[in-house]
């Protein structure tokens, strides 16, 4: 495996219960329990699991968006889980995120041009608006969008186009790590195929490391090198995609794989009518 870029050691993450007037907030049951993982340079790792398995919480903790209860997250040699917001900010450029719903993650009052150029200026990658425009246009073309999109607002473009803007926004800053959380679950099949192709091309070209969170094992199979199967906040199984799909060791992984329908009629798949 390539050298590790991002690692988590014995990570425990929970959300605090509500605090009362006299009692302090009691820690709620942890959502992520004792997870240890490593993502290498240029590696795409799938994180799969059902709703409530803790995959989104794990992803957020990997980016330092949630402080863990215990354990650590190390990004390129720096422990980020103990850093405060100002100390973590220089690292933000190097760790980006693509969200599930681009409609709610792109500011509806900003044009696509502003959405794409503001971070370039903020991180001083571009010194002038002109330079930022040039970089934004180049990235927009790379993700397969026409430049006319720059003048649009998020609601004026299609869902597939919005998701491409979300991808452009994430890769614009030339990050080393990108977290992609359920980025194709709202898309049509044909758009989904285009977006996944794009993700595959970009990670290869840029040598990006990626954590790809999804509940759809077929999609994970198509884009990931390795996969972690989460259940009840723990890793039920992990390994190379080929190995896991060929012969899952955990019965839970088997259940998940068996639950994915294939586009081929199989009279046995649903079983005999109960």
């Amino acid at each position, binding site marked *: 495996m390539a050298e590790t870029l991002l690692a988590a050691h014995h990570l425990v993450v929970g959300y605090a219960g509500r605090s009362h007037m006299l009692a302090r907030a009691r820690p709620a049951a942890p959502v992520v329990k004792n997870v240890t993982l490593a993502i290498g340079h240029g590696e795409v790792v799938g994180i799969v699991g059902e709703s409530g398995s803790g995959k989104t919480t794990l992803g957020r903790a990997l980016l330092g968006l949630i402080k863990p209860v215990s354990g650590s997250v190390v990004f390129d040699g720096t422990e980020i889980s103990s850093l405060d917001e100002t100390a973590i900010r220089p690292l933000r450029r190097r760790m980006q995120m693509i969200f599930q719903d681009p409609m709610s993650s792109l500011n509806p009052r900003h044009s696509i041009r502003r959405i794409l150029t503001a971070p370039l200026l903020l991180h001083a990658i571009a010194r002038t608006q002109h330079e930022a425009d040039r970089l934004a246009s180049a990235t927009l073309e790379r993700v397969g969008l026409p430049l006319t999109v720059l003048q649009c607002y998020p609601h004026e473009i299609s869902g597939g186009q919005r998701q491409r803007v979300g991808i452009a926004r994430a890769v614009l800053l030339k990050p080393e790590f990108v977290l992609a959380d359920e980025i194709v679950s709202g898309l049509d099949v044909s758009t989904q195929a285009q977006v996944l192709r794009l993700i595959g091309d970009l990670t290869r070209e840029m040598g990006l490391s990626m954590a790809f969170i999804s509940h759809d094992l077929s999609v994970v199979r198509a884009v990931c090198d390795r996969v972690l199967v989460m259940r009840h906040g723990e890793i039920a199984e992990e390994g190379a995609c080929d190995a896991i799909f060929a012969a899952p060791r955990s019965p839970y992984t088997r259940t998940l794989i068996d639950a994915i*329908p294939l586009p081929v009629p199989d009279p046995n798949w649903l079983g005999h009518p109960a």
Partner: protein
Amino acid sequence: MSAPLLTIEHLSAVSGRENGAPILRDVSLAVTPGEVHGLVGESGAGKTTIVRAILGMTPRTVRITSGAIRLSGQDLLSLEPKSLRRLLGAQVALIPQDPLTALNPSRRIEAQITDGLRMWKGCSAPEARRRALALLEEVHMSEPERVMRCYPHELSGGMRQRVLIAAAFALEPKLVVADEPTTALDVTVQKQILRLIRAMQARHGTGALFVTHNLAVVAQICESVTLLYQGKVMEQGSTADLLLNPRHAYAQALVRATPRYDLPDEGLVPVPEGILADCRAEIASFDRLANG
């Protein structure tokens, strides 16, 4: 083959706004009793417009210009609202996409299942309650007594979908319209729900129109299928033919775009722009013929 239960004949619709853009273009399809027919297409294909037309819920923004929808031979589009309501209430049930918004958040599950039984079947309160319990057992709900007392927010997504399936089959409809019933669910729950719909439909001999964008789901639950693109039927026939021997280039491309965990190198080919351009050209020439 038995006489069709639901037929849609040459249904066309346009936008009710000024431009009058076509939404449905001469759509015909048939559902026979005891059969599950898939209605497939990507967003904007017209699936929802068809479902709403069947249920008499066409919004003012859509105008149906021609065609007929027949349920057991009766044309739904020409019925008075009152007779339409009576016919639909007795013969058609909907399994909606979002199991949370479809249930009334402020009423207990019991009331939401027994309403229909009391209104349409004339059941007494104890009789309706007894039937509701039996239905919840039939959809494999554990602790049906407790579920009857629950409010929707106290149940998981999969449980809410089971309640809706129980409610849909409560009135022994002839036709069930399932509008993307598993899109919001986890894969393991999706499989349970599909198995349940299949079992209920087979046991009650109900015909079903199953709306989805997922060809893999179609493969497992539908006998026949209609594939739409921008309101026009692109291909129609048995599910096995559509998936294994698609004739139309768009159908072929859509099958190849569907990801497959068993063949990771085969699925996930984006629909080529050339094929979409051909589809648009086909539709444009259809529109010219229709208007000229």
